């Protein structure tokens, strides 16, 4: 959340310049083409759902208290 606060405070600047504020990189001047952004916006949710499903499965598999120790790979 602190990171979120920092992002909110910086926007639209991505990387501020300490030599001259006008030279800072912003979301506008560092962005890629609009076609690429639109296309990627269709793929991003698919990947996100895949990751979300994986995470739910992973954390369900390994929930609960660790008892004992020594056995297994770790």
């Amino acid at each position, binding site marked *: *959340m602190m990171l979120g606060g*920092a*992002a909110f405070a*910086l926007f639209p600047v991505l990387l501020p310049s300490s030599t001259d504020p006008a030279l800072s990189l912003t979301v506008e001047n560092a962005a890629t083409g609009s076609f690429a952004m639109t296309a990627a916006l269709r793929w991003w949710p698919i990947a996100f759902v895949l*990751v979300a499903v994986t995470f739910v499965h992973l954390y369900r598999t390994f929930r609960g208290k660790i008892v004992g120790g020594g056995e297994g790979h*770790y």
Partner: protein
Amino acid sequence: MTTLWFLLVAIMLVAYIVFDGFDLGVGAIYKLAARTPEERAAVRRSIGPIWDANEVWLLAAGGTLYFAFPELYASSFSGFYLPLMLVLWLLIGRALGLELRSHADDPLLGEVCDTIFMLSSLLLPVFLGAALGNVIRGVPLDGDATFFLPLWTDFRPGPHPGVLDWYTVICGVVALIAIATHGANYLTLRTTGEVNRRARGIARAGSLLLPVGTAVSLAATIAVRPTVLENFRAHPAGFLIPAAVVASLVVMALAARRGRERTAFAA
């Protein structure tokens, strides 16, 4: 559209801090929380199967950053070359320490793995926090969007800063406290016995230290870069974010004291 991608990259970075944050934190307090070989094995097993899944978020955020803002990626990766190399080595050291540990039959080799794992888990949050500090403070970008930062200069965030100055070091230390507390809260959830008791103690200490650290870093941020407040003044809804930070710090401190593990970890 660019705003949306800014938001998505920010969300993925936050996911990285939340998920990989706790296994980094577990690593950072590894030898404090676990003393005997059995305890250490239990701690390793608590994060063993999931730590690399958590790092997916770092890759995803990095990839998306490269895709959405290539110029930023190019500029910052060449400018932050030295610290990025260090971060890379720390990530490698952590992975090797954890994954090769079980192949080390010799107690001395095991100790070496443990030490590398803990040391790189300790230093990573410091560097990640310092990186955030660098981005807030600003870097000496010139007209063609390039810059180069030495690791340190005179430790002052002036016009010729280094990667480490007093401000970014504060950010790094606060990040370490936050990550270690997060990791301790995770350990109290996943372990029993002595490890659980020690992790509980660390979490309690962290929940008291963290508000202090947060206040110090906030004051330092405003001193170094007063313009950070402009967006908050222009859009008062943004104050919900710091309000949520304060709320979660309070909830975490209370929950840690009363032994409510789940609540403390969620906060």
